[in-house]
């Protein structure tokens, strides 16, 4: 697969405050990438650099080969890479769900018949068919966040960047939003860049990048990254509870792989051992 997004030796400073330093990173088309790091590690800045909300102080960011500092390309870049932010209340502009989802394509001057199709598809993709005519403020946080995702989807982007989209949601809202994100990736092949503080969410990605002090501290599959518990803690993060339990069992002499990151993996592995000992 080709690279959709490329950071080429990117640094970024807010005034004298250097937030990112010498980032080299490639994100493949169709990949699901999770970005982790403590608050202030530069994650949100990285997200904003992708679709040209911020421009690098040094280096270049390319989206589908387009340089984000090339103003003539900015509209195309934002059509390619859409963004969803943490607080759904700050991203909803219209008073009816379907109008909100139609907002961006309308501004692009797309043909109304085409907009109708896109809006219906987008609302269906996030599972809000029953709420098309509802007022967004009457929806729950998780539903609002799905409206925001539908709004981005209606732009038909190839990549969606989500900056802590579940931070303000309850567990149910979180799991529904995560379900939508995974489906968009697996079924529609949309490239996902998910910034999150939840290790369980990152465990569902193809790859994890951890930022620390503005640099890439780790870059690998969830299994590779989470099997290094001490390293995770030193980076201000933690491992998912299931990995924690697995590592403790290994310490106790139970023969398990170090890279278990999903509850069902541990259950299956333990039952397998049970079969052989019974």
């Amino acid at each position, binding site marked *: 697969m080709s690279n959709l997004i490329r950071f080429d030796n990117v640094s970024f400073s807010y005034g004298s405050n250097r937030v990112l330093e010498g980032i080299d990173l490639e994100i493949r088309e169709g990949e699901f990438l999770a970005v982790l790091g403590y608050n202030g590690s530069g994650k949100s800045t990285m997200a904003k650099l992708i679709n040209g909300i911020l421009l690098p102080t040094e280096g270049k960011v390319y989206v589908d080969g387009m340089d984000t500092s090339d103003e003539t390309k900015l509209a195309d870049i934002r059509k390619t890479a859409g963004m969803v932010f943490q607080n759904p209340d700050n991203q909803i502009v219209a008073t009816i769900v379907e109008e909100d989802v139609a907002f961006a394509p309308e501004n692009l001057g797309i043909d109304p018949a085409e907009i109708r199709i896109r809006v219906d598809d987008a609302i269906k993709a996030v599972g809000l068919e029953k709420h098309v005519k509802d007022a967004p403020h009457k929806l729950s946080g998780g539903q609002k966040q799905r409206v925001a995702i539908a709004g981005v989807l209606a732009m038909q982007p190839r990549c969606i960047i989500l900056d802590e989209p579940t*931070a303000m949601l309850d567990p149910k809202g979180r799991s529904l939003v995560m379900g939508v994100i995974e489906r968009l990736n697996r079924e529609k092949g949309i490239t996902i860049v998910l910034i999150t503080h939840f*290790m369980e969410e990152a465990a569902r990605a193809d790859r994890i990048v951890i930022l620390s002090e503005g640099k890439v501290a780790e870059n690998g599959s969830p299994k590779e990254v989470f099997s290094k518990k001490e390293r995770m803690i030193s980076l*201000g993060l*933690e491992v998912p509870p299931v990995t924690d*339990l697995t590592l*403790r069992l290994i310490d106790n002499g*139970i023969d398990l792989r170090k890279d278990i990151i999903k509850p069902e993996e541990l259950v299956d592995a*333990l039952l397998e051992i*049970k079969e052989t000992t019974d």
Partner: protein
Amino acid sequence: MSTIKLENAGFVYQKGMPDEKVAVSGVSLTFEEGDFIGIIGHTGSGKSTLIQMLNGLLRPTSGHVYIDGDDIWDDRSKLREKRFKVGLVLQYPEYQLFEETVRKDIAFGPKNLGLSEEEINSRVAEAADFLKIPEKLLDRSPFDLSGGEKRRAAIAGVLAMRPEVLVLDEPTAGLDPRGRREILDVISNYHKAEKKTIILVSHSMDDVARYASKVLVMNAGGVFYYDTVDEVFKHALELRETGLNIPTVTDILLTLKERGMDVDTDIYTPARAAQTVTQYFKEVEAR
């Protein structure tokens, strides 16, 4: 020290209107002084409504709320005094920061109590100390702080009121793992040092299990369970069946048990979960 008692307390939004909504109904329980209580439940289970009744932000539409034996609504002239006993930290409290400096912001409450300059300074210092806010940050604008620091500054403002009962609604929402741990650790240290009652509303059963001594599980506006952490987790299966988000390790143990492994399931920490699973295999081997 204060005890809060609810007697058949209920709250209905838009009472008497076509869109009236029962948020809490028939809740009777006591929050004993010095306890660390975790409150969990789905969105809409009545958690936030309940805690707003604890310090008189909402007046129950039925039943009573007593603080130290007095119905807080009996004598309106004493409501203010009662209210100060219960400090409420709302969700995303940093949105309420507004002063020019962190110091002034923490001092805002005590100042309104009409305390002396000296007393105010000592309270600010004490609250900042508990929340691990270094002296050098106190003269900065609250808006220059990091997310976690802002959150702690906002909580310090409530602590400076020296409430007998500290109620926190989702104090770790939106923070990174280290920030979450820091906030919960300072709350726990404060609880241990001052023996004040702490009521913590959380979506995270893991956090509640780790820090609280008692758990109140709310469901559909009522009390589902209210007991010690150990007792409540004996009902892990029922909790899971109502769709509550139980700790990951408890969930794993329940699944193992369902699939024929005889492990303990009233467990909520990775350390103890590792113990019971290891124990199981040792026993199998011994046979």
